[in-house]
């Protein structure tokens, strides 16, 4: 039943993957910032953990994007 990946499926996979890039890019820093803020509130560390996790979230977003672009270009 599950033979070689049809061409149409590759198209769908690319759509799924590429359309998730904007969300991951926008959400990773936001999630980082929110977690950082909660940690800041808990440990009373001012804005620092928020800022650090925001930047790490940005890095994570870019990293996931690179991974997704690579995966979308990978031939089946």
């Amino acid at each position, binding site marked *: *039943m*599950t*033979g*070689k*990946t*049809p061409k149409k*499926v*590759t*198209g*769908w*996979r*690319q*759509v*799924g*993957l*590429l*359309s*998730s*890039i*904007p*969300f*991951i*890019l*926008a*959400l*990773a820093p936001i*999630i*980082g910032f929110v*977690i950082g803020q909660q940690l800041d509130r808990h440990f009373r560390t001012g804005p620092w953990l928020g800022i650090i*996790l925001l*930047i*790490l*979230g*940005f*890095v*994570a*977003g*870019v*990293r*996931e*994007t*690179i*991974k997704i*672009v*690579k*995966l*979308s*270009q*990978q031939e*089946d």
Partner: protein
Amino acid sequence: MQTPRPGRDILDRALRASWLAAIFIALVLAPSHPYDALSLLAGQLIAFLHFIFLRKIVKLFTEKRGGAGALIAIKLVLVYGGLMALMSWGRVQYAPLCAGFALPFAALFLKSMMLAFGAGPASLMRRGKPAVLVAMFLALAVTSPARAADPLPSTSGTHGATETRPGDAATSDPSHPQPGANAAEAHHEEGAAELPNWLVILHDWNPGNPVINWLDENQVIVFAWIAGFLFLFISWIAMRNAKMVPGVLQNAIEWMVESMENIAGGLLGEKHIQRHFPIIGALFFYILTINMLGIIPGMKSATSSLDLTLALALITFLYVQFWGIRNLGIVGYLDHLAGSPRDAIGWAMLPVMLPVHVLGELAKPVSLSCRLFGNIFGEDTLIVVFVGATAMLIKASLVALAVPPMAGITALFMMLQTLTSIVQALIFSLLATVYLYMMLPHEEHGPDESHAEPHATH
């Protein structure tokens, strides 16, 4: 049609389209709300810079060339610095700024949808420019009455929509009961962006009943249950007398299940699909049923609530992590989360890479849920805006003028909603499959990444 090159072509076109849209909306807004127009353009500019830098960074990384660090630093200063500067500017309007920032994202999403249907801008142009003109006029038609009427403070905000409950509208002002069609308008004016479903009407009819109250307060759960039972019922009807030569319903269901299995199997491979298809197929058909339920008048798509989409994404997330741990083992899973450090530099980077990996993993389910929720909620809101506008025009005794075009537009959006329902269900389950694929062990990789031992994609 030329073969689409994912990435560059789509991004260029999306950015161009978003600039056109932003300039057009800014021109419409400029005479009455100059700061809104400026904020919108500023948001668009920030998002544009973000994408331009991102493309360069991704290119440098994928082509394994240096200089990405400097580029990231410039991007951080320009984009995030610009955003901070804008935020501290007193006259900036947050809603248009966010809208401007979201425009390229929306355009990119639409473009990637068009890639799926093989409908690039060239094919749209072939069908004639009238379509583009009609779209522009429709956009104008939508923006002008909305601005003139102006009582839509929370239709764009999810919190406003969920907090201002339809039931509250009726109970807070008992002297004005809103049965039937009028409830749509009352809804609209109260700012809750949903059409009245049968629970709202039931609640308006009998506000004191505790059972109805409970049902009304838990609408999302009720409609999710209805969709679940409907899904089970249809499957049961279709398959209770399964025959070798299938009937119409059995044939349709078998075709859908086999198509889905082929698509997911094409990604996961024959080895894994038998084990994982039950959850992937269930996700697809369940979300499809929920989405389609919203098209029936009096019903509601439970996926237009972030609660349900987040729950579905959480199930996917836990499932993927469970299989990650089961396949890689606890140590292998932790190694995967830490970015597989193999040398001194890798271990030194551990405190940075661990949160980066964890944040990346967390972003996946949130992205899944936000997309599904955003699309279905957006579609619902569009239809509510049109129904609300029609109701307003009917109230102003402009029946002959209002009803035919508005009904046409609403019908058009309902057709679009059907399409989005299928596409979103497919994309949700496909992405769940992709996330699973990234976590499952697989030997075949690119030529530079082949390992003998099973590993997850890093």
